[in-house]
């Protein structure tokens, strides 16, 4: 199996889905000739031509609004928003139309679009290039919010997102674009949406994370094991909405000690929903209050101090040890 970066794995997913289904069309700013600013769409225009790999004018609402029309007609547009910080222009099209046309037309028009956007901090970027606003999309009924955590699941989830009949916001952890390689099979591989997975089994406590935070969370689990003899179970959410809570609940019932890790600001962040589900479904199994290891309720600072904002291994280990000490 070839080893790939997340960028290469995403590129493979796009290429194979375009080969498989000519209703799949890629569009966005700089996705064609340039191959995308992160090169996720590299080479696609050479293989599929400019009718299927469309460089659009610089207008995010336009890109998504047009994608909605394309999807209603029966195409499968995969649009790229260059940075998630610029995706808020599209919130209005996503909330008012993409998420609702199936409902508004009572089943006649689905909107099978995918909106890809790199999100998150850790790459020493400019303002508006490091935010984690996945909550915006997760709160909208009718939209699916997916965040992969590695090359292999990024590829398999993007394949499923493209084939999904509903609009999917696909946030790509840009800090992981080239951070490491994984074996990714050349042959087709898809992973179901709305399914989380156990990334590491353990009995002593549960760490719940997703996206770029999976790396420090797994590292923290390793350190908890090697330095402290603690077995942490780590759950990778993969799809934030609609959220599959079965593994979270089962794990919380088993360990009774849970920490949620995300780089999004704490208040009203994904952790709030996760903890609410645990309160609803596993309250009597919880030994201690659930901990949140998250970004703070501030704008993520410019990069000289972003590592102080982002949850890292020490904060996760510290939170885990406090849960165990309580």
């Amino acid at each position: 199996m070839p080893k790939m970066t997340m960028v290469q794995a995403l590129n493979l997913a796009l290429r194979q889905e375009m080969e498989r289904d000519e209703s799949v069309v890629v569009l966005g700013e700089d996705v064609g000739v340039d191959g995308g600013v992160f090169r996720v769409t590299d080479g696609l225009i050479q293989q599929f031509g400019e009718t299927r790999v469309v460089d659009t004018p610089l207008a995010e609402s336009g890109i998504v609004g047009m994608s909605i029309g394309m999807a209603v007609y029966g195409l499968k547009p995969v649009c790229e928003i260059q940075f998630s910080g610029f995706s808020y222009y599209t919130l209005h099209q996503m909330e008012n139309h993409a998420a609702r046309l199936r409902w508004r037309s009572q089943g006649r028009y689905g909107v099978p679009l995918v909106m890809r956007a790199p999100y998150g901090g850790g790459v020493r970027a400019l303002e508006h290039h490091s935010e984690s606003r996945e909550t915006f999309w997760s709160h909208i009924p009718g939209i699916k919010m997916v965040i992969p955590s590695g090359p292999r699941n990024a590829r398999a989830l993007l394949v499923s997102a493209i084939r999904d009949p509903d609009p999917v916001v696909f946030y790509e952890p840009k800090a992981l674009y080239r951070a490491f390689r994984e074996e990714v099979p050349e042959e087709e591989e898809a992973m179901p949406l709305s399914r989380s997975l156990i990334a590491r089994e353990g009995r002593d406590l549960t760490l719940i994370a997703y996206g770029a935070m999976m790396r420090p969370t797994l590292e923290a689990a390793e350190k908890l094991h090697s330095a402290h003899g603690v077995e942490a179970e780590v759950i990778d959410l993969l799809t934030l909405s609609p959220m599959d809570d079965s593994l979270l609940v089962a794990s919380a019932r088993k360990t009774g000690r849970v920490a949620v890790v995300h780089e999004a600001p704490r208040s009203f962040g994904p952790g709030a929903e996760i903890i609410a589900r645990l309160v609803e479904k596993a309250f009597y199994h919880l030994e201690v209050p659930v901990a949140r290891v998250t970004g703070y309720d501030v704008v993520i600072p410019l990069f000289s101090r972003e590592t102080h904002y982002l949850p890292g291994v020490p904060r996760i280990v510290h939170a885990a040890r406090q849960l165990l000490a309580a």
Partner: protein
Amino acid sequence: MPRTRIELADAIEYLSILDENGTLDRSLEPSIPAETLLRLHRTMLLARRFDERLLSLQRQGRIGTFPPIAGQEAAHLGAVAMLRPSDWIVPAFREMAADIWRGRPLESIIVYNNGFNEAGRIPADRNDMPISIPVGSQLLHAVGIAWAIKYRGQSDVAMTFFGDGATSQGDFHEALNFSGVFQVPAIFVCQNNQWAISIPRAKQTRSPTLAQKALAYGIAGIQVDGNDLLAVYAAADEAVQRARAGQGATLIECVTYRMAVHTTADDPKRYRTDAEVEEWRRKDPITRFQTYLAAKGLLAADAVAAEEAAVQAEIQAAVDRAEEQMKRLGDPLLMFEHAYAQMPAYLKEQREEFIRLRAETQEEK
């Protein structure tokens, strides 16, 4: 020569064929079959009377808030009259006459305006989008549909409707710009009815016309008398032919007037004068069209009264059917449907919770 004049190719035309007195410019008269003309007349009349009936139903509390269309019948019907069933309509929310022309049953409009999602269903044989309330947002959908039509090598068009207020929105700019860049078969029909609730046309833009905005995007644009069905038809027909021929999009500004309230929740006396409304009443689209049909020998003197009686009977029958239908509608469980293609697990749990709570809270009522 550092400072020279840039020659811009186009100027904007204004088109009027049948003036407010019913006087016809024969040289511009579009060729419309007599049967279609009569159907257009019937639909104009039906839409006007139905609008009045909806208003009275609303005042009686038998339906909810709705946006009346009176005065804009020609600007709706002239635009859609030459479309094929396979063409796409992407409406805003005040295009009821176009909707009726495209085959929407009157009772569906009543049931929808009484708050039943069921009536939002679009049947499989109509390529029309449901109404779109956020102003201007739907133009981009028409561009996407038109892009897809072109991608699939079809000759259909996507026609979208919006008001003068929508031209101030960013999505208007983005849609027209995209349509020009991608040269897609889209037709932008602006219902310039002079008022966006209380904001007059002059406060939306300093541009003397809305049609001229087309020039900036490199697409065709024309301003027409929107109360002149023949002018709207001629401009739309030209735009449709241009689109089908692969020559790109058109912006049509229909200069018309919203004779009634913005919605039934609005009081226009706060922002405009009766004198202004009366002035536009003289430009009514229906009376001049009747003059035209009479002059062509298509509408006998007593035919209008007969048509009036026929549309009133049709409306009454629709009201009866709607009220009968609504007795059977309203299952609250419908609210859980169509959020996603397949209901997610947690939503199923919420649906179960709703069923349980409905039973358990009976005694609290």
